[in-house]
């Protein structure tokens, strides 16, 4: 496992709340390899988003070690190791789509010409070329989320952290975006960590599926997907797909029983 990009060993995270301590993560150990597409699935409160936030350096684990590209999460963030896509697109309403994508580039100090070049390239990548001068409210929810993915891609981080990016979208749009995301992943060879509620989504997208359960948040199963990397949408009707989905469901159920 020399090419592991993200290595977590014995991660613990306890939040102190008014209702007493909440054990968000307990003894989470996981390796994510370069070029992997890893999905985290589980009911709410299982710590999947918290784990993603730990990788991003937005939360600090109370115990255990976590390295991203061989650095601490904080160092990795400063080294622009990852782009983060949130549940909502979170585009600034006062900036155009292009302006929103330039936001990280401005903050990171890219030159004007490079900003323009990169903006055009990532808009092309998410199929939004021609929308650069539009404002967010002029775009559909799915297009806004694509723009937010473009924003996360703009500064060429190797890792893409995605926190239920399609959770608020309807199923037809979601299918379409899943397909596009796979194509994007194939073209850019990013390492993707993807949080989701949806079993079909997790199975369809991932090379590795991490099943988690709550109270305390922990990993109950890690499934290496035997599906080929090239996946048309109708792969979801194959026996292999259904079998993996079954195993994920079992894992989720088991987590519930002993919770």
């Amino acid at each position, binding site marked *: 496992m020399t090419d592991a990009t993200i290595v977590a060993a014995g991660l613990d995270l306890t939040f102190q709340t008014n209702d007493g301590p909440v054990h968000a993560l307990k003894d989470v150990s996981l390796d994510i390899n370069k070029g992997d597409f890893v999905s985290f699935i589980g009911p709410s409160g299982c710590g999947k988003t918290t784990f993603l936030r730990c990788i*991003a*350096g*937005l939360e600090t684990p109370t115990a255990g070690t976590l390295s991203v590209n061989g650095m601490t999460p904080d160092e990795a*963030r*400063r080294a*622009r190791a*990852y*782009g*983060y896509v*949130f*549940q*909502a697109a*979170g585009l*600034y*309403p*006062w*900036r*155009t789509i292009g302006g929103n994508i330039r*936001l*990280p580039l*401005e*903050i*990171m100090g890219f030159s004007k010409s490079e900003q323009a070049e990169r903006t055009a390239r990532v808009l092309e990548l998410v199929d939004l070329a021609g929308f650069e001068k539009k*404002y*967010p*409210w002029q775009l559909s929810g799915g297009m806004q989320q694509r723009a937010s993915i473009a924003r996360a891609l703009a500064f060429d981080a190797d890792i893409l952290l995605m926190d239920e990016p399609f959770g608020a979208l309807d199923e037809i749009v979601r299918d379409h975006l899943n397909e596009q995301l796979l194509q994007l992943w194939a073209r850019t060879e990013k390492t993707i960590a993807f949080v989701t509620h949806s079993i079909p989504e997790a199975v369809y997208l991932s090379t590795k599926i991490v099943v988690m359960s709550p109270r305390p948040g922990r990993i109950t199963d890690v499934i290496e997907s035997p599906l080929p990397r090239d996946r048309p949408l109708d792969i979801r009707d194959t026996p292999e797909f259904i079998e993996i989905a079954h195993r994920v469901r079992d894992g989720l159920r088991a987590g519930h029983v002993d919770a």
Partner: protein
Amino acid sequence: MGCVRGMWMRNLWAFIPGLTVVAAILAVWTLAVIPMNAHLAADMAARGDIVVTPKAPADRKALSGVTLAAKNPAIMAMTYTLERPRLPSPHQVAGELYKTVFATAPTSRRSLVHHAWVTLSATLLGFAIGTTLGILLAVGIVYNRTMDKSVMPWAITSQTIPILALAPMVIVMLGSIGIQGLLPKSIISAYLSFFPVVVGMVKGLRSPDGMQLDLLRTYSANNSQGFWKLRLPASMPYLFTSLKIGISAALVGAIVGELPTGARAGFGARMLVGDQYGQPLVTWAALFGAAITAALLVGILSLIERQTLRRMGMEAAV
């Protein structure tokens, strides 16, 4: 054509509720003129050899305005044309406004435009001071823990002190160190107008949600980038709401600042003069002049607000 006329009709309909209210106020005002001025009119009529019932002034005093007017229909018309009425009629006020705004050279001391400018200049200066102070305080409150805990209670306390009590003190104190004219009035304006700006801007600068702040953290953005790229633009709608409240408060401040010093110019001075020399029309014209000025100022700000937010692509949010 039909479409254009349709739009006109719709625009007209939009004004109906507002116009109805104005018409109702004018009607009540016009009717109220009769009982309010009945005694004055009756006294004048009695002096002019018209028979008034009851004859003795003392007896008339005992009657209410309504009763007196009902007993003497002849004096009703007179209540609308008194030179020094207790309550001037709408057309008298309108006439006085027209005379002092349009029929008098703006350079004349009798011109209401002249007095409006005196008050307006103090208002605008005070508004500028107050807005700047308000924004600076809000930034301090949002970025500095100590200020967050300490400034707001003082800001609130400052607004509980009656400005009528404070204004003379400010004017006299500044006067004793040689500061007179525009600045003392502006300081009172600023005192009233900074508060809505502080409250609005604190709310506005804090309006970005956790996700938007997290997004900037993932870029390792520093505080100043967070301010200029996220917090400040996000606060614009809040700022304009505050500015509209602030500028009317600033105008009130300037007028109040003119009252205690025996100022010789400005809306406040005109109100005082009218009161002291028994010229209610002067007072009423100044009052309406101030109200119209405030409406214009707020209107101008609304226009700038709409333009700015449209340029920022936020018209959908308005």
